[in-house]
């Protein structure tokens, strides 16, 4: 079970990282979501894996660690807020740059006009 779980987290992380390294905003956002899935699962599993041990007092005999669950819940909410923001920001960037490349227009990297040279120019 643990190996399986670790593999899942590994795959989610790898996929998220790969997507975040893409050049367009949409895959990056998808990658961030994927990475946050990985992180949430990871943080959740710091309390170790338990079956049928939900931390609801009185329902079972042994309880799993409730703290990571609370942390993950917080992380999910925050992650949602952040994802929402970055999605909207990606839209803004698309609207402003006319392109959904994460660096703006393709010609974004081209050097700007040479109007800023030194004092030599008079």
């Amino acid at each position, binding site marked *: 079970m643990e190996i399986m779980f670790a593999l899942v987290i590994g795959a989610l992380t790898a996929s998220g990282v790969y997507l975040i390294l893409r050049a367009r905003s949409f895959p990056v956002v998808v990658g961030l979501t994927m990475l946050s899935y990985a992180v949430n699962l990871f943080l959740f599993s*710091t309390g170790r894996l338990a079956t049928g041990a939900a931390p609801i007092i009185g329902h079972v005999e042994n309880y799993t660690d409730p703290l990571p669950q609370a942390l993950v819940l917080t992380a999910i909410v925050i992650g949602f807020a952040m994802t929402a923001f970055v999605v909207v*920001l*990606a839209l*803004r960037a698309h609207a*402003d740059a006319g392109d959904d490349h994460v660096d*703006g227009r393709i010609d974004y990297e081209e050097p700007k006009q040479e109007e*800023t040279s030194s004092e030599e120019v008079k």
Partner: protein
Amino acid sequence: MNHWLAAPILLPLLGGILQIFMSFAPLGLRRVLGLATTTLILVISLGLVLLADDGSYRIYAFGNWAPPFGIVLVLDRLSAIMVFITAFLALFCHIYSIRGTDAVGRHFHALFLFQIMGLNIAFLTGDLFNLFVAFEVLLIASYGLLMHGGGSVRSIPGLHYVVLNLVGSALFLIGVGMLYSVTGTLNMADLALAVRDVDPNDLPLVESGGMILLVVFALKAAILPLCFWLPQAYAAATAPVAALFAVMTKVGIYAIVRVYSLIFGAEGGPVANLGMDWLFPLSLLTIAMGVLGAVGADGLRKLVAWQVIISVGTLMAAISLGTAPATSAALFYLVHTTWITAGLFLVADLIARQRGTAEDRIVTAPRMRSRTLLSILFLLGTTAAAGLPPLSGFFAKVLILESVNTGVSMAWVWGVIIVGSFMTVVAFSRAGSIVFWRNVEGHVKDPGRLTLPVTVSTSVLIGMSLAIVAFAGPITEYTDAAARQLHTPSMYIEILQTPMVGEEVTQ
């Protein structure tokens, strides 16, 4: 339990809430209430500075749950300084913004206050996960502020800033998770205790987690190679926001100082001084990168933004030395650089507004209207920033240089800082002479007179350089004491024994 400890957090929160409700109230009213909140925060933070000066640790346990179970705020000299620096900076950025920055977009005052709230949580919290939450609060507010004012220049740098910080947040959670998975605790004092006797078999997890946290903090602090998000983002933000952001990198530095003195500090047993050997060369390279960027900058805002990176490198170089004198010097430098770079962002903005299409670019342009005042402010600010006497930067620099012990590291630190200062002087003098003196005939649409709020706020921030010099003695006494406090983490750990409300009676 002293409720004032929570005031720097609750006040901006309540003020922010008020701003949400008042989104249709007249702008004037919103400004008055917003400024009143910021002013109050400054007053309280000054009180906290004085309170913390007795050298004891005060805690505030939310929900009356004892640490390590509940979340506590911990006030010591370092947190008090940070809260005060922030409050002071915030007030004058806030004053500057009422020139009209606050009116060019929505919810400026709410975002601004929430930003302060997040910063203050970060500086006060004694809980590692709560530090994450604090980071998120301050980041999301900073995203909002960064994008404030619209226009198309901000979205791409903003996107970079947000995406990288989101990755940073993910890494933070991984790091916290790794520490928790071994130690089973989140309170920083408790963590400091726990890592000392970690099973050697579990040690790599702790080390790895600690290093990931270092990467996260380094990203926030903008240390090479994680500093490249900063110049564009800061240069693109509206002036009061960029100025306020001068403290944002300091949050990362604060986190490094706090976590790496308390948990991974000299008393950290098997994880003592974790990562500091990485940090030292990187901070020197950061200075070099900052200098390179500053020398090559084609605009004043960019120039100041790179100056921020230089200051980050300088700070980290001192901190990574790991001695109390170096830490004290770093804290002194931090006070100086936060206010001065902030002031310079404001100066750059005032300049840009008077130069028509040339804006802040280092090119020939028609004369500015208020160039005498602006040139004085620019001169003072850049002199201070470059570390030339007689302003604060010089004292900060000397403190740092003196704090290095003779040896190889001395040669490196001195060499990099001094050569860096020289190049900075060259860059600033070039920029200043072109911007102020190399004029062409022509007319710029009259930008109007400098209003009182912008003049006062900019002058005060720049003028703090003189104030720091004047009060250098008391300030160094405070930072010395703060550094000593930081270098004896065992005192901090004793907060775990603080009785809760209702328990005091029985003890």
